[in-house]
């Protein structure tokens, strides 16, 4: 029997995965409380960054955490780490509750994939490894590229909007994005070899 540690603000990625699995397997409320302690303040910060007022951000955070509780049995750490998985839930709840739109998603299964589109098996990357590499790659981005990525995720802006907001020419925004992508991609692919 694992001893439940006092609630912490930050926990390791593997430990978070394990907590979600425990919620999924045994509806473990103590595990859920610890996940809440880690994720709820970050999800709320994310919603505030995207322009929600405090009450709306608070409500959408509650709904995100409720979805985490309900869907924990479908969490698959080989597909995405807990942090990435919670990000997708928060993103989708925000689209649903704040933008009032539906969020279309592909099926997880492979049934509909076109046969020639699959990545070679030796290039398929484990989720935990991908999360680690993405984090490392983000750290190495020059500030001007990292800022653009932040705007894409936190301000709901298209490249055209970002150009208007920053006063940069659209071509400059596009080329900085391309640089940031290729850098992220190079780090990800380089580590795969």
């Amino acid at each position, binding site marked *: 029997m694992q001893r439940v540690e006092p609630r912490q603000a930050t926990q390791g990625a593997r430990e978070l995965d394990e907590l979600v699995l425990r919620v999924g397997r045994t509806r473990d409320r103590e595990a859920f409380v610890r996940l809440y302690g880690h994720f709820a303040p970050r999800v709320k910060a994310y919603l505030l960054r995207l322009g929600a007022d405090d009450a709306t951000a608070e409500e959408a955070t*509650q709904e995100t955490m409720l979805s985490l509780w309900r869907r924990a049995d479908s969490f698959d750490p080989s597909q995405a780490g807990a942090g990435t998985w919670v990000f997708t839930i928060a993103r989708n709840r925000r689209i649903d509750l704040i933008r009032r739109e539906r969020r279309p998603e592909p099926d997880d299964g492979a049934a509909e994939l076109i046969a020639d589109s699959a990545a070679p098996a030796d290039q398929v990357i484990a989720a935990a490894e991908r999360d680690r590499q993405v984090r490392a790659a983000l750290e190495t981005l020059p500030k001007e590229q990292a800022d653009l990525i932040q705007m894409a995720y936190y301000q709901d802006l298209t490249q055209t909007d970002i150009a208007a907001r920053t006063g940069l020419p659209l071509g400059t925004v596009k080329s900085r994005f391309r640089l940031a992508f290729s850098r992220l991609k190079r780090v990800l692919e380089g580590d795969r070899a």
Partner: protein
Amino acid sequence: MIHHPSADVLMAYAAGSLPEPHALLIATHLSLCADCRDAAKEMEAVGGALLDRLAPAEIAPDALDRLLKRLDEPAPPKAPLPPADPVLPAPLRAYVGRGIDGITWTKLGGGVEEFRLPIPTTGGYATRLIRIDAGRKIPSHSHDGDELTLVLAGGFIDGDDHYGRGDVAGADPSVNHHPVADADGECICLIVTEGKLRFSGPLGPLLTYFRG
């Protein structure tokens, strides 16, 4: 599959900032394309990493207790999905509500039919399935805004490029293009258009009138 969505569109999908019609088109492409699905997962991992780096916000002290009381509430039922379909991948079936054979098409003339998807047109977007007879030309047209096309069945040629099932074609406002459906069968596409289509061929003004 040769033509994929650009990295910035995939990132906007992963970030959750794409408008619903474009998100539907990308989700449909991801149903068919393992490579792009993998790329989208990487971009979701970027979202996860950024979430982790945010300074935590303050949560109301009683929020956790209120939430714990709700954990036993029953979850809302999921809408059932129409059964598998050779043309319409899952995300699209969820919107159309039936398979490709159940669609009631509206004739546009010239061997072209359309079905408008029930997505609110806020933002001035039109989302439609287009069915083109084998070998027929889509009337020459340009747009006020960007256009995004995903091939679902058959294929077409636009200029030097061929597009088949799963391929994504983007056209910006400056492009005046006239795709031609393959000769060996009908072509069905999902098309998201921003702004009004303007047909510039001889039937142009008439078609623009009907579709505006």
